[in-house]
């Protein structure tokens, strides 16, 4: 009698677990695309992109419109450019939207992707504490600014994650013929938002893309120091994966996405994003 009771309860416990799992499943599908119930055959597309496009809110603004036009739901995996390109080389996603021109060209050259297109650009700025120990506020030469920071050994937080922003930063150090090292040079190994947070806590300088800066600036105290240098220019490219190399990828969807981003409509939307909220566009469309 007692034994029967025990096993009943164990079965009941298992049943509850399973039920929750199944309910979870159903709920998820239900809410997955709340406004798309009229279109049953919504296809999904996997996009590996940088944290900057996602954290800035640009994708949240663009993707619902693309979904309406092309009937593709884009699943966004936001990582550093290095990891995004790695995912592309492994064939785990359908399309890349990244910003590291050299790495992108190599990606296409090695046959992983095809038909890279320019989409837009934004720019970086060097931000830092109001005290400005390196005395660079208001200057417009990024290379000279980094030289001054290194000379003063003023704290500088680097992304340190092989991302597009990190590569950009390293390129400027290289132009300054400095190999940054030492206690003042902090390699965060994290995304832009985390790096901003860390630089703020440490009252350090850092290199940041304008989109992330504008989106987050009210939460932290760091101020713009150097901006407007062409060395701080940051172009984004969209690259569908090569269907010959990866038969598993949705090349059609990836191309539709690339075409949409570079279409008149997509370009117009990119140029308008942020104007209302921040008083300036976060990304400048530059598709040919």
């Amino acid at each position, binding site marked *: 009698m007692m034994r029967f009771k025990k096993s009943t309860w164990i079965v009941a416990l298992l049943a509850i677990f399973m039920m929750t799992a199944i309910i979870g499943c159903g709920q998820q599908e239900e809410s997955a695309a709340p406004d798309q119930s009229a279109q049953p055959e919504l296809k999904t597309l996997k996009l590996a992109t940088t944290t900057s496009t996602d954290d800035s809110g640009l994708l949240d603004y663009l993707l619902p419109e693309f979904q309406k036009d092309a009937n593709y739901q884009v699943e966004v995996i936001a990582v550093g450019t290095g990891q995004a390109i790695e995912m592309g080389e492994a064939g785990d996603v359908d399309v890349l939207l990244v910003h590291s021109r050299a790495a992108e060209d190599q990606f296409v050259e090695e046959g992983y992707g095809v038909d890279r297109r320019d989409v837009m650009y934004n720019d970086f700025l060097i931000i830092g504490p109001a005290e400005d120990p390196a005395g660079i506020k208001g200057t417009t030469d990024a290379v000279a600014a980094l030289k001054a920071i290194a000379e003063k050994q003023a704290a500088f937080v680097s992304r340190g994650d092989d991302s597009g922003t990190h590569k950009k930063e390293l390129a400027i150090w290289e132009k300054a013929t400095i190999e940054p090292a030492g206690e003042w040079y902090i390699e965060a190994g994290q995304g832009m938002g985390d790096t901003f947070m860390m630089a703020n806590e440490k009252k350090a300088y850092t290199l940041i893309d304008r989109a992330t800066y504008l989106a987050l600036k009210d939460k932290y105290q760091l101020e713009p120091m150097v901006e407007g240098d062409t060395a701080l220019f940051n172009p984004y490219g969209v690259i569908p994966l090569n269907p010959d190399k990866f038969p*598993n990828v949705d090349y059609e969807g990836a191309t539709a996405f690339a075409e949409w981003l570079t279409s008149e409509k997509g370009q117009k939307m990119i140029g308008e994003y942020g104007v209302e909220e921040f008083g300036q566009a976060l990304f400048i469309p530059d598709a040919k």
Partner: protein
Amino acid sequence: METILQGIKEGIYLILQMDAEVVQVTLLSLQVSLSALVLSALIGIPAGAASALKKFPGKRLLLNIVYTLMGLPPVLAGLLVYLLLTYRGPLGRYELLFTPAAMIIAQVLLATPIIWGLTARAVMTLEQNVYDTAVTLGASRRQASFTLVREARNGIIAALTTAFGRVIAEVGAVMLVGGNIRWATRVLTTSIVLETRTGNFSTALALGMILLTISFLVNLIIIMLEKRTFRYDNTIQIT
């Protein structure tokens, strides 16, 4: 301090408001972690009991390995699963990467050693006379072994709650193999990382409160079932 209070306020508001995205993220967290828990229990309890009761060469070594894996870093488990499931990997053709299934697999990898190890320990602490009594009462070897597992249930329930706590709270593995995709693989812990990264500390705290609340509720259910199931048993009385 202000942020913390704001977070608590926002947390209560978020729970009451039943925002569709928060609900979906919470349910996915539960779905992934409970599925992982059930699968790990199905592997871990029998394996733990068998490795405690059976005599075989390398038993100590095996148990030592299991105990070591109880401390497997989540991000390492995630990386292993990632490398297995990537398109070029051995299981790539199933296209499971960046799906809840991948997250469940990674969490099973984390939870199974915990259930296995703690079950083995619980069974091993039983006295020989439990088995002997069962045999004396006419139980077959198999029935007597089941008796042992039943006698070890408190330890096994502790194993289940520990394993659940581990998987519902981990972020390294699900971030890597799930990809934190909105509406698809975003769970509470990866949302907390995202909100922290984008500077929304109070929302991150609010999500943390939800995480703790559901963890509390699941444990409450387990404890209530435990009580109702075993209310006829003797517990130690301090006199």
